[in-house]
């Protein structure tokens, strides 16, 4: 398919391939937003840093902060596709949300302090937004940050914090003004995850992995300069970060690559009558439809990026892309399990497990996407309200 690359993007694509060929890390590409294993962390940081220093990642940053000055928003798109196709890891964490927040709201000292460490991947970031009582209704969050002589005293609890167990820093939303209207009393902070009073407790998800966490704050003393922007700007910072997260989701785990993998499986395997799966009409039709939906997802994501660059983005673009991606993904892995049949049930460590248990993990993980970054029910509300003007 076209997704036509300009000459410049074609060169960029080639640069990625060259870099991957020369620097391929001895690390698995994990599905979705899975965290690297603890003992893989050093190699993982090195790999991510190499993407930045080769100017393949963060190219849209201002030149003085390490960017290549390229205005082309499609570079990230091309990079994610290439990394997925090459089966090498992408750079996880909230760094993209944080860098955006710092560029728009951060002070120079904050940019000087944190941006280089994002590029060197000395700091892995997590996003401290959701709470047990504030999921879909994030604005009702209860964590507090009270001003004292030293800075800000934080108390509260966060949940569903991906990568908190490997993160060095966190982007925190806390209430600084209990008296103010719900959204207006929220502020954003940088939190050192190793500070006294910060407790990270892993949550185990249905895949068996523990990449989500609860994070407890017991009288955590943040310095004054931990505040990003002004008090009360937290909600604005959060909504921009969430929009970025939603448009990113489609690129974390490209569905086209999954469908291609299923086509491979269908070519190499037979049904119980001895017919190659790819010869069967029902299989071909299902794969073709999934492929079309995956391409449509990529197109919407691609268009969304073009619109942001042109300044014509629509407020419902990000929720729409997130909906499209997560549901195409869910249907792809659901069909994948059915296509593979009972061999898909072997435990991933079993010698018989097809594709080393990839499909089983992907199937279990799929509902993570339809819930995280704002549930699809909330996304539908946003699309209806913002896109169609339907009443709240």
């Amino acid at each position, binding site marked *: 398919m076209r997704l036509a690359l300009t000459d410049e993007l074609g060169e960029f694509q080639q640069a990625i391939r060259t870099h991957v060929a020369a620097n391929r890390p001895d690390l698995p590409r994990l599905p979705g937003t899975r965290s690297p294993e603890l003992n893989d962390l050093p190699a993982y940081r090195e790999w991510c840093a190499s993407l930045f220093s080769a100017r393949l990642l963060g190219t849209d940053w201002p030149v003085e902060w390490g960017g290549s000055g390229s205005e082309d928003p499609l570079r990230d798109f091309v990079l994610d596709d290439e990394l997925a*196709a090459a089966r090498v890891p992408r750079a996880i964490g909230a760094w993209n949300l944080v860098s955006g927040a710092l560029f728009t709201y951060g002070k120079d000292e904050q940019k000087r302090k944190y941006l280089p460490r994002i590029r060197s991947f000395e700091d892995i970031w997590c996003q401290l937004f959701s709470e047990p009582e504030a999921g879909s209704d994030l604005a009702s969050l209860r964590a507090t940050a009270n001003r004292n002589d030293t800075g800000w005293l934080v108390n509260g609890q966060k949940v569903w914090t991906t990568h908190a167990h490997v993160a060095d820093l966190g982007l925190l939303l806390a209430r600084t003004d209990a008296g103010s209207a719900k959204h207006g009393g929220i502020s954003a902070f940088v939190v050192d995850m190793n500070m006294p009073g910060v407790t990270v407790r892993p949550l185990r998800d249905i895949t068996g992995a523990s990449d989500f966490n609860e994070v407890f704050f017991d009288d955590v003393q943040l310095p004054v300069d931990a505040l990003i922007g002004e008090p009360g700007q937290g909600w604005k910072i959060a909504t921009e970060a969430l929009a970025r997260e939603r448009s990113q989701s489609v690129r974390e785990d490209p569905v086209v690559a999954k469908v291609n993998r299923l086509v491979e499986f269908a070519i190499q395997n037979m049904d119980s009558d001895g017919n190659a799966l790819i010869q069967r009409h029902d299989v071909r039709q299902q*794969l073709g*439809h999934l492929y079309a939906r995956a391409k449509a997802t990529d197109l919407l994501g691609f*268009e969304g990026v073009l619109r942001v660059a042109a300044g014509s983005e629509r407020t419902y673009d990000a929720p729409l892309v997130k909906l499209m991606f997560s549901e195409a993904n869910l249907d792809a892995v659901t069909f994948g399990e059915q296509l593979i049949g009972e061999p898909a049930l072997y435990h991933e460590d079993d010698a018989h497990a097809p594709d080393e248990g990839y499909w089983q993990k992907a199937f279990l993980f799929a509902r993570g996407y339809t819930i995280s970054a704002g549930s699809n029910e909330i996304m539908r509300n946003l699309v209806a309200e913002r896109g169609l003007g339907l009443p709240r």
Partner: protein
Amino acid sequence: MPLPTSDHTELRTATRDVLAHHCTPAQVRARAESDDTFDADLWKIGAELGWNALSIPEEFDGIGLSITEVSIVAEEFGRAAQASPLPTTLGAALILDVFGSGYLRQRWLPLVSEGTAVLTWATGRGAARPVPPLTLRESDSGYLLDGFTDWLPHGTSATGFLVVAVLDEREVAVQLAATDEGVEVLPMQSLDFGQQHGRLQCSGVVVPAEAVMGTDAADAIFDVAVTLQCAETVGLASALLNATVEYTKSRVQFGRPIGSFQALKHKMSDMLMQCETARATTWEAASALSESLIGASEAVSVAKSITGRAGSSVASEALQLHGGIGFTWEHNLHLSLRRAKVNELLLGAPVWHEERLASVVRSRMAASPVNVGV
């Protein structure tokens, strides 16, 4: 696929304004229920505005635009629920321009540009059941064409036909005139009574060699036809969604607009997703064809898979959300529902295109096994 330019927006707005004037719901209804679904007055107005010259090269006094612009026009006609042979005429003209001999170009392009030629096509592909193709065989005077084919859009109003036929086991394209001896067009009645399709019958039609084009042209006819069909569906689905949103905002039950109920909001959100993916994939197909009429098949089948399904799904949900009123004969909704269904099943149903996509992906994998994994 670049975003639409300001020129595209201008063309869209201008087309929409004219159609809003001349194709009000009442007018569309009257035309659909009349014996002649071809709106000669609108055709004349369009010709005077230069619509018929959109895709004609400048050498024949045309504006020299591409499939992208024709798709915009097709979409707007879809939005107005007005059936018209203008998109097929412009699409066929473009194919004649690219693949046709000097003879074909000289004979047809000026007639299209000035508004006297009405062109339609028969792609010979996408049928759900086996259908014998038109056959071309060599003769002393060139070739002879025999056979019949159904579903020519506006077949009974057309003055020219761009058809796919089989010659020695390969597909070729042939341009015919309604006045050619041995050509007969019979009216067809279909689910979409607002649009007259035609059945073309060819009995020993003499075809000069200059009127025959190769397999590339045959492929292009199909790809262009599917894309313009999708563009029409994009327009009609969008109009149905807008009508549904307006209806649910104004219809009050239980003391509130029914559009404020979450279940309905979610249905309409899904309808918007259908409309958006149809729009994006169709635009991509049109963009691909604007760059080259050859090699766009994957983009075209992606568009038809998504859009064919989207049109019918949106129409069906639109009816549901209108409740009882949507089920009446008098409400225009079913006119669009019928067209969406026809567009879903003609020129290859979504499942047909999905099989084609599976073949495309499989071939690409065989050609280069590296770089396709996750």
